[in-house]
């Protein structure tokens, strides 16, 4: 069972490596950001699988921290420094 979860984690890690290609080729900023968002979720899944494989409970807390802060990068990415079209939709 230990090996199954480790293999599963490795498989997910390989999907991250494949996804890196999207960050390299882009072409738009949004594409790159989306890939990073996918990595965060995949990373969470890997953490959970490794927690089971290595029997480390603290790793689930790592996944929890990943998840609750995953929105930060995207929020920083779409944020505008100055208010835009004040009359229109926010």
């Amino acid at each position: 069972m230990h090996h199954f979860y480790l293999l599963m984690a490795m498989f997910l890690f390989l999907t991250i490596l494949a996804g890196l290609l999207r960050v390299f080729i882009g072409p738009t900023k949004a594409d790159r950001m989306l890939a990073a968002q996918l990595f965060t979720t995949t990373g969470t899944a890997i953490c959970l699988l490794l927690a089971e494989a290595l029997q480390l409970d603290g790793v689930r807390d790592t996944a929890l921290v990943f998840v609750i802060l995953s929105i930060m990068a995207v929020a920083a990415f779409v944020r505008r420094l100055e208010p835009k079209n004040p009359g229109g939709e926010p």
Partner: protein
Amino acid sequence: MTDTLFDMTLCAALILAAWRVLHSSDHFQAVVLFITFGLILALAWVRLEAPDIAIAEAAVGASLAGVMLLDALRVMRSVGKEHEQEKRWTSVAKLPSFHLFFSFATVLILSVVLISAVTELSDAQGGLTDLVHAELEGSGTKHPVTAVLLNFRGYDTWIELGVLLLAVLGVLSIRECSNLHSLAPPVATTIVLENLVRGIMPLVLLVSGYLLWRGGFAPGGAFQAGVVLGAGCILLWMAGHRSLTMLHDATWRILLILGFLAFLALGSYSLLSTGVFLAYDRQYASIQIFLLESAATLSIGTTLAGLMLALQPLKKDLPR
């Protein structure tokens, strides 16, 4: 076998990501890769059975640093001739050749020295695990990492809180503002993000408190809790909430120095009563450590959030 394969993939990914962070042509790509690098590094900490560090890295490397860099990227866009320079695969070409020669020679020599040092290290055995476990009894906490941070090497933690304080003071003086009240109010964002943050903030606070509590007997502790707290404050600001600027100026200042002062007070008390700086009474060690950790959590949280918020536009910089 599976473990080795996993290790090798992880190391290859780390090197690949680091290489592209430093040598891609586009700055935005570099920042996104930097966030990904932080994520892969957190996975490496998990693999190396250091969950304490993985928690801190998940909050710092994968979120906080990325947010700071994304924010800086907006104002640091290179323009004109410099921009053309950056667009090329590598922009080292423009430096004087002696500079290039010097830097690559330095890197080469250092790498050789380091590699030989590392191969030496592979023969060395030992480590301090047994010593820490032998002293764990009566240190006031059941988790070895917390015991090292707060008890055995309390000096380090104390000075480190001082370093954090210096960093935020430095940023404030560079910005030429004395407190967060000179910041322009945050820009309103979409209602979707506002609502998400409204829902998720209690969870962030809960996780922060949970990590502080867990630090007594399992991975977690003041640093992780503080980093999560600070990230939460920044998240509030990004959702258009006034966050730390809501606090009275004096309150903010007290929160900043609380951790440093708590260590200083306890250290002086133990110096007067026992003659040793930062020595705990065995009887009260656990409650003393808990108080120190709570103070440190608040300080680290406000400091990290302050570092980021102090870089936001000031009232005087706004157009009109």
